């Protein structure tokens, strides 16, 4: 394993600001493919860091015992936004900047812009395939899933199916994606899978376990690893959902959301999944029901909700007729 400092800036306080990349080169000759993993663009998302740890640990072991297994090259940037990760904040703390809204041709010269540009350019130059790992924010919990913008689905779906996440969600384009790492790399024809899993500031070991196995299988499928360790299990194929195959429940009232179901549970249409309460008056404002039958793959974690707040998403068993 080769450790490289992607970017370094001296700081006024003393300790420099460094972004580190770990590389596992091909054992011999030109790599069959170069796969990069990046996590921690948002500093309150730790699931990806744990996934990177699992990958680095496993790949180091393979390199020590069977280096010839490496037919391709693996790059891992576990902590892409160290100042935010150290503070546990989504945004770059000193500037309040979102690194995943500065990717692509972004003007400016602030330190977060420079860092985003450097990471983007490095991934662009050194990758044939990228996996960008995110957790949800502090408000929602997500089953392990890969999200794909519709226009990239033809190329990305076959790759996503190899990762054995619970869900592959193909969704429409929106303006908010235009400045993200995933969108801009995909626009440059570097296939990039975006993972969402778990919740902010927490680690769900079981989710990361599944993702770790899925990522190892992806590396094997792409020929980067000639074989897999025997303890990597085979897993079920993800459920693929298209835009009309996802239904969401939102709060109709502002109050305290108390959930009555668990993430990953199958729910029936109109089944009660929770209540919105007025704790000051001791009144139930609303019974929240499932918007359809299927797999509950997003669930509200933060109980304080305004009317309109997203409470749950269900991957429908059957898409509604147009």
């Amino acid at each position, binding site marked *: 394993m080769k450790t490289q400092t992607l970017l370094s800036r001296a700081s*006024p*306080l003393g300790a420099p600001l460094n972004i580190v990349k770990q590389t596992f080169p091909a054992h011999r000759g030109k790599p069959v493919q170069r796969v990069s993993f990046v996590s921690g663009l948002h500093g309150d998302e730790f699931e990806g860091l744990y996934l990177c740890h699992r990958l680095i640990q496993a790949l180091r072991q393979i390199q020590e015992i069977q280096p010839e297994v490496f037919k391709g090259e693996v790059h891992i940037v576990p902590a892409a936004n160290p100042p935010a990760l150290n503070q546990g904040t989504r945004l770059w703390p000193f500037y*309040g900047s979102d690194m995943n809204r500065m990717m692509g041709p*972004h*003007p400016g010269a*602030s*330190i977060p812009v420079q860092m985003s540009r450097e990471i983007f350019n490095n991934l662009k130059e050194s990758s044939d395939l990228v996996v960008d790992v995110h957790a949800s924010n502090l408000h929602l919990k997500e089953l392990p899933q890969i999200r794909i913008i519709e226009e990239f689905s033809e190329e990305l779906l076959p790759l996503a199916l190899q990762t054995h996440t619970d869900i592959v969600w193909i969704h429409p384009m929106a303006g908010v994606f235009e400045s993200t790492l995933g969108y801009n790399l995909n626009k440059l024809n570097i296939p990039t899978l975006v993972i969402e899993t778990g919740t902010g500031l927490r680690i769900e070991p079981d989710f990361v376990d599944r993702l770790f196995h899925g990522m190892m299988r992806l590396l094997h499928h792409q020929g980067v690893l000639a074989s897999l360790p025997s303890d990597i299990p085979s897993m079920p194929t993800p459920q693929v959902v298209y835009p009309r195959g996802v239904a969401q429940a*939102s709060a109709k009232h502002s109050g305290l959301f108390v959930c009555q179901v668990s993430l990953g549970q199958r729910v029936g249409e109109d089944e009660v999944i929770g209540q919105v309460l007025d704790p000051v008056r001791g009144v139930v404002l609303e019974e929240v029901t499932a918007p359809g039958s299927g797999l509950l793959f997003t669930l509200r974690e933060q109980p304080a909700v305004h009317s309109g707040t997203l409470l749950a998403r269900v991957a429908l068993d059957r898409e509604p007729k147009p």
Partner: protein
Amino acid sequence: MKEEILNIPTPFGEPLILYKNQWGPEGGESLSIVSGLQGDRLNGLMVASRLSRFLNDVESGKETGYQIRGTIQIFPVVNYKAWETGNPIWNFDSQDVDLTFPGTGVGELTETICNMVIRHTAESDYGIILQTGERHYEDAPHIKLIDPNRKRRNLARSLGLPIGREVAESPSLVLSLAKQWDQMGLHPFILSAGKPQSYHPQYSDLLLDGIINFMRAEGLLSYNREKPSPRKMAFFDAHSECPVLTRQAGLFYPEPVNGTVVEKGSKLGEVRDLYEGAVLEEVHAPEEGYVVTLREHPMVHENELVGILLREKNQRWFWPFG
């Protein structure tokens, strides 16, 4: 006059109410003025309040000689929850309002608020956004223009600020209010002066005077004693910008050069060691130019942006001919 545009119950307290002020007959020229997109931009909030008082006085006849001819709307506060804390963003969702437009009719609170602003301003001919420099920077008073065609540059001139500057295109620009207005057919102008968390009375006077002059020049307001005064503006396109970066990390001591033209090689400030006070570096202007932005916060990393110059050789004057 003062009109409620949004009333949303909060989970545990009083409702969140957003207001706009509106004057004048409908059907003619119309102008929307927005401040308070971030919760720490005081100059805009103060200008909006002073302007509202002025227009109330015009309407009630206290300001003699003036008459309101078009529709004028002012939205003093957009990011209400951020203003409650004095931070640029609402910590609850870590969302920059000016990266959330056009929002959605039914959805998360910040998205709903943004969508409400869009709906209320959609029929306007002109839009003015009151801003300051970014966090840790002070802006000399200037106008930012999106797609600065000749008509827009001429319109901007009557706003009375000495400098016009093109906003560089970027993937995230589409999420800003100004770009959304541009796409909706409004002429958007961002007036930036001063720094966050600080009120600058002289800049407030300048902005107030400029906006009143603009309203008179565009027929939104008439005055029977004198014609609107002609103004002069130097315009700089996006390629004119010259970032000034430090070489050393430390404490930046700026020279009083903001809002002035500096020669190539002029001293803009110096970087001193945080612990021992020794001068590590003198920062000089890499080119001749107008200093439009200067660093306010002294702590700087290596390669940190401490100023923006607008290259004099790229400037084009817009004189009040015709």
